[in-house]
């Protein structure tokens, strides 16, 4: 039954959708009004953010559409993450897309991904999950292939598209097999039938489901699309896609595993531990040999997926609550540091040598990059440190031999990642500037984003307490 409450529960998505459609329509009727559409899109993301905060503060909760759609603190938290990253992505995208003259289409695609990601975290029905995940993914193929002036863009888009669609069909097969084994696509009813020994059909469904998600999360061995897609994509799109859809996918995977198949936890924590170890090593080792900073950050995002999967491996025994907290805190930490690092690339350039002597020519931007790199390594007091700290605590509290191994791998990989992050810092401080890199014009919005995110990364410790409290009341775990 659809009541007025349903509309309140769906208000963030409805707002984002309405704004994305009006941006598109303005693009149809007055294609040159870049400033108007950029302002409207940014305002839409902001309105979505404010609505979600209000829903969170009023402790709004409810189940809609026969329990297939749920609004709880957990879902609202991830909607916040999506809205914030959409806001910054729109700010960063406005200048670039205004120059190419495609601002309305580009911004509409960003908002569509945001709508899909926000719907995704609330789904409690596996087919709803599939539709929402596709709503978030299909526009992102177009976003990656959007830059017609660079041949890498369409190439990255095609690689992302072919692997992504393949992953979707694998994911769908997993969902259908679980639906067949459980007789229902509703997570609560699946939980009722996923007890005791798993039937072969259910086990195959679970494996295919996790493989499909591993593709979307760029977990090794399903990560091949990530570097090409992020290198080819426009920088603002790469920044957005590495944060918002990924956060939502992690969230829904957490919900499916914890609500839908808690009795099978020993099986899937083992799979997650395996994926996490592999993902961390491959991501970091490949990042070490990159000369292109954007490609390096793509591999670094693979490695960070591994750190978050390490928290999934700790979803057992006494570690469940802390592991859920770890995922929530890590995603917020990753949001500020990774968006910031990508936006610095937008300001400076993607070749490593363009960073030579940046501290002498543009000290403000260079200092921000130092903050982001240190945060991505996990040096206190920057944001990434708290994410990793929570992952490690969760692994230790879970207290099995496997989680100890995973925690050891997290620490080892943090050390492994130091050379490539600090290589950029070395270039900025100790190399001579090759050319006098003049600041491009009209980058005010991007610079504002970079400085804001750098400040958020630095004072992240202030957010940790509220985030941990929110994780505790969020119902999962």
């Amino acid at each position, binding site marked *: 039954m659809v009541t007025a409450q349903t509309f309140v529960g769906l208000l963030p998505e409805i707002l984002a959708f309405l704004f994305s459609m009006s941006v598109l329509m303005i693009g149809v009727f007055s294609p040159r009004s870049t400033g108007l559409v950029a302002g409207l899109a940014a305002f839409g993301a902001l309105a979505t953010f404010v609505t979600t905060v209000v829903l969170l503060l009023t402790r709004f909760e409810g189940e809609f559409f026969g329990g297939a759609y749920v609004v709880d603190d957990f879902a609202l938290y991830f909607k916040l993450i999506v809205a914030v990253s959409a806001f910054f992505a729109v700010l960063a995208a406005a200048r670039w897309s205004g120059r190419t003259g495609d601002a309305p289409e580009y911004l509409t695609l960003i908002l569509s991904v945001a709508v899909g990601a926000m719907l995704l975290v609330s789904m409690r029905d596996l*087919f709803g999950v*599939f*539709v929402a995940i*596709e709503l978030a993914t*299909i*526009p992102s*193929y*177009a976003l990656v*292939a959007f830059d*017609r002036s660079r*041949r*890498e863009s*369409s*190439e*990255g*888009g*095609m*690689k992302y*598209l*072919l692997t992504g*669609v*393949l992953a*979707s*069909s694998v994911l*769908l*097969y997993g969902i*259908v*097999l679980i*639906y*067949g084994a459980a*007789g*229902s*696509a509703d997570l609560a009813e699946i939980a009722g039938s996923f007890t005791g020994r798993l039937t072969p059909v259910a086990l195959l469904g679970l494996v295919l489901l996790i493989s499909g998600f591993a593709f979307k999360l760029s977990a090794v061995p399903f990560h091949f699309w990530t*570097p*090409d897609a992020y*290198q*080819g994509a426009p920088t603002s799109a790469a920044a957005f896609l590495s944060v918002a859809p990924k956060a939502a996918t992690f969230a829904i995977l957490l919900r499916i595993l914890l609500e839908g198949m808690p009795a099978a936890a020993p099986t899937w924590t083992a799979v997650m531990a395996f994926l996490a170890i592999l993902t961390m090593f491959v991501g970091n080792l*490949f990042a070490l*040999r990159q000369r292109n900073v954007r*490609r390096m950050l793509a591999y670094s995002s693979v490695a960070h997926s591994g750190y978050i999967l390490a928290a999934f491996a700790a979803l057992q025994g006494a570690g469940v609550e802390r592991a859920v907290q770890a995922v929530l805190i890590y995603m917020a930490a990753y949001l500020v540091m990774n968006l910031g690092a990508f936006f610095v690339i937008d300001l400076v350039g993607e070749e490593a040598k363009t960073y030579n002597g940046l501290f002498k020519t543009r000290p403000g931007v260079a200092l921000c990059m130092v903050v982001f790199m240190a945060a991505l390594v996990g040096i206190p007091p920057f944001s990434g440190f708290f994410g990793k700290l929570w992952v490690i605590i969760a692994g230790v509290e879970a207290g099995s031999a496997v989680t100890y191994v995973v925690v050891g791998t997290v620490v080892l990989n943090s050390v492994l990642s130091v050379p490539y992050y600090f290589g950029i810092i070395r270039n900025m401080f100790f190399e001579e500037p090759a050319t006098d890199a003049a600041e491009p014009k009209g980058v005010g919005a991007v610079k504002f984003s970079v400085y804001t995110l750098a400040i958020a990364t630095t004072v992240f410790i202030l957010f940790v307490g509220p985030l941990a409290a929110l994780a505790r009341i969020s119902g999962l775990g």
Partner: protein
Amino acid sequence: MPPQAQQLLDALNQTIPLEGYLIVGAIMFAIGAYGALVRRNAVVVFMCIELMINAVNLSLVAFSDYLPDAGGAGAGYAVLVIAVAAAEVAVGLAVVLAVYRSRKTVNVDEVNLMKW
């Protein structure tokens, strides 16, 4: 009518068991996956993936028809899946077209500016 013919008719009149549909679906899925991995033309790869999605759809409809609890809801889901697959094709062919415009080929082996 000879008894053998009668037996054959009876056998033909029985409903096909669920396993039959699932096996056909699994074989179709495997053929699609094989084609997606070995074919080099991006459009053909795309067609193979569509075959995989339709194989899954067949399993889905079979499940919804045979499961006592499902109440036929799977048919509704199948329509959703078809709609999603159509949306994927719309964006997918546009991206393939963009690749073709920039380098006059859609062979996935020749689209190799970026490696490792």
